[in-house]
C-alpha cells in the first residue's frame, strides 16, 4: 500500500561501516530484518520505557541498550528485536520521529544485532551516528520540536495559562531535551534517583551479563528469547554447563 510515495523513501539513510557485504546484501538485510535501531534516545531512558513504547508495535524479543564504551553507561541508542517482520515495519513507520522522554527518537531498520554493536563507536565513546551526522542534529531538532509542541498544547480550557508554561517545569525540560550530548542537563539528579543508578552501580555484573549473553547466543538450542517455546524443547543442562565453563 501507499506505493506511490514509497519509491521516494529510502530504507535507511545510514550505511553501517561494520556490515561486510555489498550494498545489495545490506539492503536485503534491511528488508528482511526484524531488528530496529533507535537513535537520539535520552541517556536516562530505561529498557522498561522502551519496552512499553515498542510493545505497542508488537511482541518484543530482546532489547539491547547501546553503552558508552568507556563509561559502560547508556549513551543514547539501542536495538529492539521483534518476533515478526510486520511489527518491525510498524515500529519504523509509526514510532520514528515521535517523542520518548522529551526527545524525538529515530527508528531505522537495522541489519541485525551482533555482539559488539552495543558499544558506542564515537571518538568520545558515545553514539557515532550523531557524531557524524550532518543532516540531522538531534539537539536542534529536539529544541525545535519541543518549541513547536509548546505552541500546540492548547486545549482551550483557559486553565492552562502562560504562568504554567513559563513555570519551573518549562525551563527544566528545555534543558533536558537539549542536554544529551553536551553534558548532563537540568534534571540530572531527579533522573538519577529514579534510575537507582542501575547501570553505574554494578558495572561488573552488567558486563558479565553481556558476556554471558554472547556465549549463549551461539547456543542454538533451545531457542533463546522464545516467543513461546515448544513444550518438546527441553533445556539441556549438560550442554549449558559446558558452554559456561
Amino acid at each position, binding site marked *: *500500500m*501507499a506505493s*506511490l510515495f514509497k519509491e521516494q523513501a529510502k530504507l535507511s539513510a545510514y550505511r553501517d561501516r561494520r556490515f561486510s557485504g555489498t550494498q545489495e546484501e545490506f539492503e536485503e538485510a534491511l528488508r528482511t530484518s526484524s531488528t530496529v535501531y533507535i537513535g537520539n534516545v535520552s541517556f536516562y531512558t530505561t529498557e*522498561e520505557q522502551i519496552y512499553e513504547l515498542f510493545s505497542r508495535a508488537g511482541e518484543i524479543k530482546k532489547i539491547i*541498550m547501546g553503552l558508552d564504551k568507556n563509561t559502560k553507561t547508556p549513551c543514547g541508542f539501542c536495538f529492539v528485536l521483534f518476533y515478526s517482520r510486520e511489527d518491525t515495519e510498524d515500529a519504523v513507520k509509526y514510532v520514528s520521529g515521535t517523542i520518548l522522554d522529551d526527545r524525538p527518537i529515530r527508528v531505522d531498520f537495522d541489519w541485525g544485532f551482533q555482539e559488539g554493536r552495543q558499544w558506542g563507536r564515537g571518538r568520545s565513546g558515545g553514539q557515532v551516528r550523531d557524531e557524524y551526522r550532518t543532516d540531522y542534529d538531534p539537539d536542534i531538532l529536539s529544541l525545535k520540536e519541543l518549541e513547536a509542541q509548546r505552541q500546540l498544547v492548547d486545549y482551550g480550557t483557559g486553565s*492552562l495559562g502562560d504562568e*504554567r508554561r513559563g513555570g519551573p517545569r518549562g525551563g527544566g525540560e528545555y534543558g533536558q531535551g537539549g542536554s544529551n550530548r553536551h553534558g548532563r542537563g537540568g534534571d540530572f539528579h531527579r533522573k538519577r534517583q529514579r534510575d537507582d543508578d542501575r547501570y553505574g552501580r554494578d558495572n561488573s555484573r552488567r558486563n558479565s551479563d553481556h558476556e554471558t549473553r554472547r556465549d549463549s547466543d551461539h547456543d542454538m538450542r533451545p531457542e533463546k528469547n522464545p*516467543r513461546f517455546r515448544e513444550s518438546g524443547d527441553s533445556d539441556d543442562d549438560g550442554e*549449558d554447563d559446558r558452554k559456561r565453563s
Partner: protein
Amino acid sequence: MSNWKTLLLRIGEKGPEYGTSSDFKDHIETCFGVIRREIERSGDQVSPYLLQCAEQLPHKIPLYGTLIGLLNLENEDFVRKIVESVQANFQVALDSGNCNSIRILLRFMTSLLCSKVVQPASLIVVFETLLSSAATTVDEEKGNPSWQAQADFYVICILSSLPWGGAELAEQVPDEIERVLVGIQAYLSIRKHSSSSGLNFFLKGESENSPSEKDFLEDLWDRTQSLASNGWKLDSVPRPHLSFEAQLVAGKFHELRPIKCMEPPSPPSDLSRENIGKQKHDALMRYPQRIRRLNIFPANKTEDVQPIDRFVVEEYLLDVLLYLNGCRKECASYMANLPVPFRYEYLMAETLFSQILLLPQPPFKTLYYTLVIMDLCKALPGAFPAVVAGAVRALFEKISDLDMESRTRLILWFSHHLSNFQFIWPWEEWSYVLDLPKWAPKRVFVQEVLQREVRLSYWDKIKQSIENASALEELLPAKAAPAYRYSLEEGKEKTEEHQLSAELNRKVKEKQSARDMMSWIEETIYPVHGFEVTLTVVVQTLLEIGSKSFTHMVTVLERYGQVFGKLCPDNDKQVMLLSQVSAYWKNNAQMTAVAMDRMMGYRLVSNQAIVRWVFSPENVDQFHVSDQPWEILGNALNKTYNRISDLRKDISNITKNVLVAEKASANARAELEAAESKLSLVEGEPVLGENPGKMKRLKSTVEKTGEAEVSLRESLEAKEALLNRALSETEALLLLLFQSFSAVLKERLPEPAKARSMEDLKSEDGNSSAMEVDSENGNPKKKTEIGEREQWCLSTLGYLTAFTRQYANEIWPHMEKLKLEVFSGEDVHPLFLQAIFSALQIPLQ
C-alpha cells in the same frame, strides 16, 4: 521523479508543481498539456501510473476523471485501453473479494461517466448485476442469507459511488437510475436488519437497541435519498468536468462489458444457530464494515453539513488512512487538506476515534492512529488539539458505557498522545474522580492512564504533571521498587531465609550451573523448609538478581529458568510461582506483566496456570478496580494466539517450498530416466545410458533433490504436529477460560430472574448489594453511582465479551466442545451466555 509523474501525483494540491494557482481548471489544463505529449513519447507508462494515482488517491478521482475525458477527445484508443484496464482490475477485485478495490474502481467508473468516457447504460448494467447478485444472496431458497455481508457490501458500493455521478446519471439515464434505486429499495425490504450488538462502542439501553435504529446500509440509503431529493447536489465532491463541458460533449463513449459477481458459499447443511453464526462471522471478516459512527460531539458543535457530505468526508479520510499508511507527511497533509469547501475538524476527530475504538478491530494498530492524531495536531495547531481534547472529554463522560476493549485502546492512545505533548492535560477537571468509589469507571480510567504514563516516562515526572490536581497523586501507581524480603539492612533481623537467599545469591555470582543449584536446593532447602519457603527464597532471590532491567531479567530466566521449571512442574505449583512473582513485583504492574509473559515464553508457567492465577481470589477482587489482571490474561491469550499464527505461517511457507522441491526432484528423476534410456558408445561398444560422468552427476542430483524433498516433508510434518498440539492446547485453554468466567460470574451475578440484560445491572438498586461498603471515604455516595458488585459484574462481563470477540476466529472451531461443556446446562447464567453470543454475533433467540 519525472515531471509528468509529479504533475499527475500532485494535481489539485497547493504546491510548487502548479505554481501559484490553486484552481482545479488550471491544474487540469496544465497536466493535460504535459500528459498528451508524454503519451506520444512513452504511452505505455502513463496509463498504469494514472490508474495507480486514481486508486490510491481516491479523493482526486474527479480530477483524474476529467483529465481522462480530455484525453479521450484526442486519443480514443489510449482511453479505451484505460477503461479496459479499469474493468479488468474491477473483475479481479470482485473475484478475490478485494473490498477496497471494488469500492474505489466502481467510484472511478462512475466518475468517468461524468467526463463522457463511460457509456451510462453500461454502468447501469454493472450496478444491476451487483444488485441482482445481492438479491440472490439474501434469498432463502436460491442463495445463502448468512452471506448478507457480501450482498450489503455490493449495494453499499453502488450507493457510495452515486455522489460522484448521481446528477449525470439522473440527467442522462433518468429511467434507468430510477430503476436501480427502486431495486435497492426492494433489496432493503428483503434483507435483514443487521444487528450490531456485540460491536457497539457503548452499552446501550434497550430503547436504543431497538430495530428502529438504522444499520449502516439503511442509514446510507437515507442519506442517498435525501441527496436525490436535493437534485443530487452536494458540496464535498468537486465537479471539475463542468468547466470543460463544452469540449467533453464531443467525446466518444466507451462501453463497459458485463461483469461477474462472486457467488457466496453454499449454506451449511445443518442450519443450527452456531453454523449460521459461523458463516456470518466468516462473511463479516471478508466484508468488514469500515466504520461505525461515533457520535460524541453535541450536534451544535459538529460541522453543519448534509448527511451525504458527512459520508463522503468519512470516505476520504478512511481512504487516506488506508492508502497513505506509512507515508507520514502525505497522510497528515491530505487529511488536513481535503477538497471540500467546509471545515471538518470535528468530523475528522470522530472518524479517527471511531477507528481507534472500532470493533472487532480497526485495519491498523492503535499506534498508527496515535501518530496521525499527533501529526494533525501539528498540522492544524489552531484547530485540532482543542477538538481532540473535546473528544477525550466526551468519551470520558461516557466511559462507564464504553466497551472494555475500546476503553483499553483509549487508555493506550491517550497516555501515548500525552507523552508526546509533555504530559500536559487539565487534570484538575477530573480531580473529582477521587470522590468516587474506587471501582467507578472514571476513576479507574484516570488511574490506568496515569499508570501507562508512568511506564512511558517515570514516576516523578508524572507526579509533576498532575501538580495542579495533586489530589490525584493517590491514583498514581506505587513508586516502583520491588518488594524484596531479604535485603540486608543494618539493625534488621537476619533470619535463616536471609542466609539461604544470600547463599543462593553467591552461587549465582559464582556462575554455578542451574543443575548444581537445583541439586543444592533439593538437598539443602527443600527437605528442611518445605516447598513454600523454598519457592519464596528462590523466586525472591532470582528475581532480585534480575530486577535491574528487562535484559537482566531475561538473562536470569535464560540461565536459571530451569530451577523454576523443576521446582514447579505442574499447574498447581505454577500458580503459586505466579503469586510469588506478583508479590515480588507488587509495586510494578509492568514488570509483573513482563515477568509472567517471559516465564510463559520459556514454558516455566503454562497459559492455563496464568488463567488460574488470574481467576484466583486475590485477583478476582481486583477485576473492577484495576486493569492489571486483565492485562496479564490478555498477554497470555495473545502469546498463545501468536504462536498458532506463527506455526500457520511456517506451514504455509514450507508447503510452498515442498511444491517447489517436488518439482525439482521430479525433474531430476525424469532427466535421469531420459539419460538412462539413451544408447551411447563407450569404447566403441553401444551401452544403455549416457556417458558415465553425466550419469553420475544426474544420479547425484536425483539424490540431492530427493533428500531435500524428504527433509522438507519431514519439517512440514513436524510443524503440523506442533500445530495440532497447539490447537488442542488452545481448546483446553478456552475451556478453562470460559469455565473460570462462568464460575466467578455465577457467584456474583444476581439471580437470572432479576438480571436479564446488562442494563438491569446498571439500574439495579445499589443498596441491595452485599459488597457495597464505602464508609472509608466518608463520602455519601451519589445515587447515580453504581454499586460495587454491579460494577464488578459489568467489568467482568465486558472483558468476557472483549476476549471472546477478539479471539472469535480461534473459538469457532472449538464451538461444539465449548457448547457441550460450558455453554449448556441449567446453571449457566443467561448474562454469561449473552456476553459470549453477542461477541460472536450469534443471535439470541
